[in-house]
């Protein structure tokens, strides 16, 4: 038994925006009455051209123009919004623009489709780009960790995979449009985030003044050198260390890398870039790409891999890899979904109803009273009826005063049993109970209508945030 669903990926970046539509094939490979549904195929049906993100004169995103652009792409692809079952809109790049972008996206998502949602956060970008570039898939075939560096206009987003699973994610203020120049070679923009590095290198780069090609190349070389030292676990200077966004990398050498993102289009064997290349888009992207090629192609310590996608890695990650399927035995009510941007509360004290209640009270207090929340847990440790009944009673008591859906996601395969107990003991409560879903505190989740007995879930994760 197979079923196909249409998924959308929309990437609104600092520099460029893109849309892709992909078809996900869900198949039930079980021969018993417990279904075993998996995504068996992901096919990208339509890739939009790479558009410059429409900006107003003040530098903020032009929401109306963006909306028109997207609707035109839907029309071009022949896709109607009601056909879209899942997917993600993500806002990428420099964080200064994100607030405005978020407002723009909120306006457009009504036209984009019901289950298409806004997500953000540099780590999530890293993860999606890593999936889209093929680093996760590649890591399933080799016995080493594989890292993807997605180098965009504003940021470089890194995800590390081992055996197909995410090991680490981080982001850096390294990008192709952190310095921009006009046709007369004058500097029109320098990102404040790289000023300490510019000072460290002693460059004379100033806003409004004529840039020297050698200096731009020196900056690009340094970007590449920093990434190589990050791979080799070699020390960074304080000014370089400050390029990490939020938190740095975990310990460990990275011995195989691939590069995606707009800048990666220039990471290939080509003649030495000059002013012509810089002026094509008025930024240092081609120089950064050439520098990465020079640094990484000429050394044996870090193996350079070919990505499956370069500039489209993130959007394909968002469209094809953001959605996960729950386990096949769950407690679901399709009338209650879609649910989007539900904050996750993770509970640990599962064995003792009183402790559970207290833990929930403390963690729940962070969110407003009427807010729908999702309760995440590992699952019962022993798995006896008594233990699960205690857990059900604890959850019911903890949430007794709430009118929202009792929404539980867990890792272990107990969702249907727990759901049944919650319904049995909780009388009138609306219950959704899903398993094989791992969610951390601080994550947000989206839940769509069930497909072939399982439930599509997007976990918008902020893992590895220190």
């Amino acid at each position, binding site marked *: 038994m197979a079923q196909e669903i249409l998924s959308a990926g929309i990437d609104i970046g600092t520099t460029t925006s893109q849309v892709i539509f992909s078809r996900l094939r869900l198949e039930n490979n079980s021969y*018993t*009455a417990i279904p075993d549904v998996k995504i068996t195929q992901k096919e990208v049906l339509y890739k939009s051209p790479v558009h410059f993100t429409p900006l107003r004169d003040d530098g903020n995103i032009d929401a109306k123009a963006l909306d028109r652009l997207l609707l035109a792409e839907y029309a071009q692809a022949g896709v109607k919004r009601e056909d879209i079952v899942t997917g993600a809109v993500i806002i990428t790049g420099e964080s200064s623009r994100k607030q405005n972008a978020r407002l723009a996206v909120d306006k457009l998502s009504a036209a984009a489709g019901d289950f298409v949602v806004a997500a953000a956060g540099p780590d999530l970008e890293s993860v999606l780009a890593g999936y889209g570039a093929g680093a996760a898939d590649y890591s399933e075939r080799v016995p080493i960790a594989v890292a993807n560096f997605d180098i965009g206009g504003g940021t470089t987003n890194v995800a590390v995979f081992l*055996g197909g699973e995410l090991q680490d994610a981080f982001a850096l203020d390294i990008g192709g449009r952190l310095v921009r120049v006009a046709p007369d070679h004058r500097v029109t923009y320098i990102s404040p985030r790289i000023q300490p590095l510019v000072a460290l290198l002693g460059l004379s780069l100033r806003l409004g003044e004529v840039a020297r090609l050698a200096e731009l190349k020196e900056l690009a070389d340094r970007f590449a050198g920093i990434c190589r030292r990050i791979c080799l676990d070699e020390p960074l200077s304080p000014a370089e260390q400050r390029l990490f966004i939020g938190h740095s990398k975990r310990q460990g050498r990275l011995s195989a890398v691939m590069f995606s993102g707009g800048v990666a289009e220039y990471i290939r064997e080509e003649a030495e870039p000059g002013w012509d290349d810089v002026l094509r888009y008025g930024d240092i992207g081609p120089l950064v790409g050439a520098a990465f090629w020079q640094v990484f192609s000429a050394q044996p310590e870090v193996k350079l891999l070919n990505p499956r996608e370069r500039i489209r890695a993130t959007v394909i990650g968002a469209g094809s890899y953001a959605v996960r399927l729950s386990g096949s035995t769950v407690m679901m009510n399709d009338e209650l979904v879609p649910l989007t941007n539900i904050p996750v509360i993770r509970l640990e004290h599962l064995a003792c109803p009183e402790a559970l209640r207290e833990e929930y009270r403390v963690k729940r207090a962070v969110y407003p009273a009427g807010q729908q929340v999702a309760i995440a847990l590992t699952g019962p440790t022993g*798995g006896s*009826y008594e233990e699960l009944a205690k857990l059900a009673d604890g959850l019911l008591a903890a949430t007794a005063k709430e009118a929202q859906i009792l929404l539980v996601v867990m890792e*272990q*395969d107990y969702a249907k*049993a727990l759901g049944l*107990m919650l319904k049995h003991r909780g009388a009138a409560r609306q219950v959704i109970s899903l398993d094989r879903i791992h969610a951390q505190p601080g994550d947000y989740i989206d839940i769509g209508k069930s497909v072939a007995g399982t439930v599509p879930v997007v976990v918008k994760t902020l893992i590895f945030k220190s």
Partner: protein
Amino acid sequence: MNATDGFVRDISLPEVKERVLIEHPQSLAMIKRLKKTTNARLGVGRAGDRYKTETLLKFRADHAIAQDAVWTDIDETLIDEMGFYKVQTLVQNKEEYVRRPDRGRIFSDETMEAIKRDCIHNPDVQLVIADGLSGFAINANLKDIYVIMMDGFKEKGYRVGTPIFVRYSRVATMDKISEALGAKVTIQLIGERPGLATGESMSVYMAYEASSKKPESQRTVVSNIYRQGIPPLEAGAQVVYLTEVLMREKKSGVELKI
């Protein structure tokens, strides 16, 4: 096999199989990940061109568990505690059970009469508990799966018949019992033929108006029920759901598209 604390490790425990025995693996994390995907004995290393002693002993221990599961008569303490109605097929002992599958499918006329005399007629749901090829499986899973099923049936308002335990039973006894009592949905819990992964795996066979005149394909099955497979509680919840489907659709097995 002596550990430093002076105790001999129990080689029959499932976690013994989680150990990676390859010396100096290039990536221990990768082998561990591979091992999580299967019950097969991966990453066990070798001594020359043979198994290591630990692997060989574990293999024999697992085989012994399977042998024991088949040849040990079920301990009926739990069945008695739960107050199930008890009957036996034509089979008289384990040896005959293994040699004569045909006799494990039928009852004597006296037994059939007793069932008709003592048990509830025309139930919505009839439970049959069968030792099958592993009594261990029944004792390991029965309690948890039973209570959650009963919760579910009670909530749905189903009329549940007298639970019947059948000694030396094959799957087809559920047809005979269903016919005798006029049950709508008959659910049989039966110990699976043990393999080298576990001796505690149980299956649930379900059929709507189960009958010996219908083919084997009348049955819907949930298998692989044990702690490390499909947990008995989760399987029970799925059985409750499937019972609803069978009651609504008035069919089961391959006729049912789920």
